[in-house]
């Protein structure tokens, strides 16, 4: 009898919050805490955006501190996290596929409150959820 192939992992859904403006550290901090506090079934939040380097990496001032005021330590769920981005996308992973609609509604109401300049929400999967062939070859 042929061996059964290993069962495919089911990807957990992610809610993508795409604000119309790049977010300040203060707004990012508020948004992340509100989502963790008020939305059930949140497993994980990932952020991406525009990188804020600590030092100037080119030009005659190379090596000087860039001192961007939005690159700073924020507190999320009581933990200090160094924010090195001006956040442009927030991915909220929901651990229960049956609760996506409810989570989405709650996220929308939080965003309405915190992001008055506009935003869009999408549900999908935006990051890898199982090792890729490259990971396999690199023995990750």
């Amino acid at each position: 009898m042929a061996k059964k192939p290993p069962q495919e992992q089911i990807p957990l859904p992610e809610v993508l919050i795409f604000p119309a403006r790049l977010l300040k550290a203060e707004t990012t901090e508020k948004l992340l805490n509100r989502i963790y506090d008020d939305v059930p079934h949140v497993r994980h939040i990932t952020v991406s955006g525009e990188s804020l380097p600590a030092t100037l990496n080119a030009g005659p001032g190379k090596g000087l501190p860039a001192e961007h005021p939005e690159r700073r330590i924020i507190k999320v769920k009581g933990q200090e996290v160094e924010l090195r981005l001006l956040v442009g996308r927030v991915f909220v992973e929901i651990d229960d596929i049956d609760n996506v609609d409810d989570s989405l509604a709650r996220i929308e109401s939080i965003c309405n409150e915190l992001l008055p300049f506009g935003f869009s929400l999408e549900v999908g999967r935006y990051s890898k959820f199982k090792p890729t062939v490259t990971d396999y070859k690199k023995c990750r």
Partner: protein
Amino acid sequence: MAYKRQFYPGTSLPAKNRRKFYDPNYKLEKLRDVAMDDVVRILGHRKPGEDYKSIHPPLDECNEPDCPVRQMVVPIEGAKKGDRIRYVQFTDSVYWAPAIPYIRANMYMSRLRGIDTGTLSGRQIIEMRERDLEKVSKEYIDNETFDPARTGIRGATVHGHACRLDENGLMFDAWQRYRWNAKKGEVEYVKDQVAIPLDKPISVGKPMEDKWLKAHTTMFRADGVDMRDDAEVMAQNLRIHRLRTLCGYQSFAQKE
């Protein structure tokens, strides 16, 4: 019949605004007045009051060869004095900045003498003799081609023209050369164009309102005026594209 110079085809709003920028007889509106010393500080090539460094003796003291072209072309002030070549670089946000790099290139070539300019995706550099460059920089910071929030003066790491604006409506800058002063409602530079900190902030004024920006736009955008809606602009662009494709830079060789 004498040839009358034309600047840009089309009847749409961006086409009209482009014509204004290109036409040297049209006086660009002056919207602000940034002090010359502050412009020099933002450029960062010399300190205000410092002598201009030179790379050759003044032309009067040079033994210029007897050349009809040299006699015909009047040198600009900096060239007469032998100044160094320095630069200024403007970055324009895709979110309704008044100018865009290619427009700047055509505008500079149409309006200025003694410059070398280069176009990149989001920025436009001007290279020029130092004392003339300072005058030109001031003129183009003060006039309607510049918006404090959506145009940046950036010598290096210009990334940000295609990013969303930040919460204050400023174009993204990883080095934060300018910041929003909420009390005054103005944008102020705290670093020069290569992000060396300035001694004191330099205000470049209030950002223009969205309504003004949309009325003065030189951009064809899908959410504004679509280029395909301006038949004359499309016809001209297709003609250029066709001639380039068929015969490269020898468009005169194409028989139509």
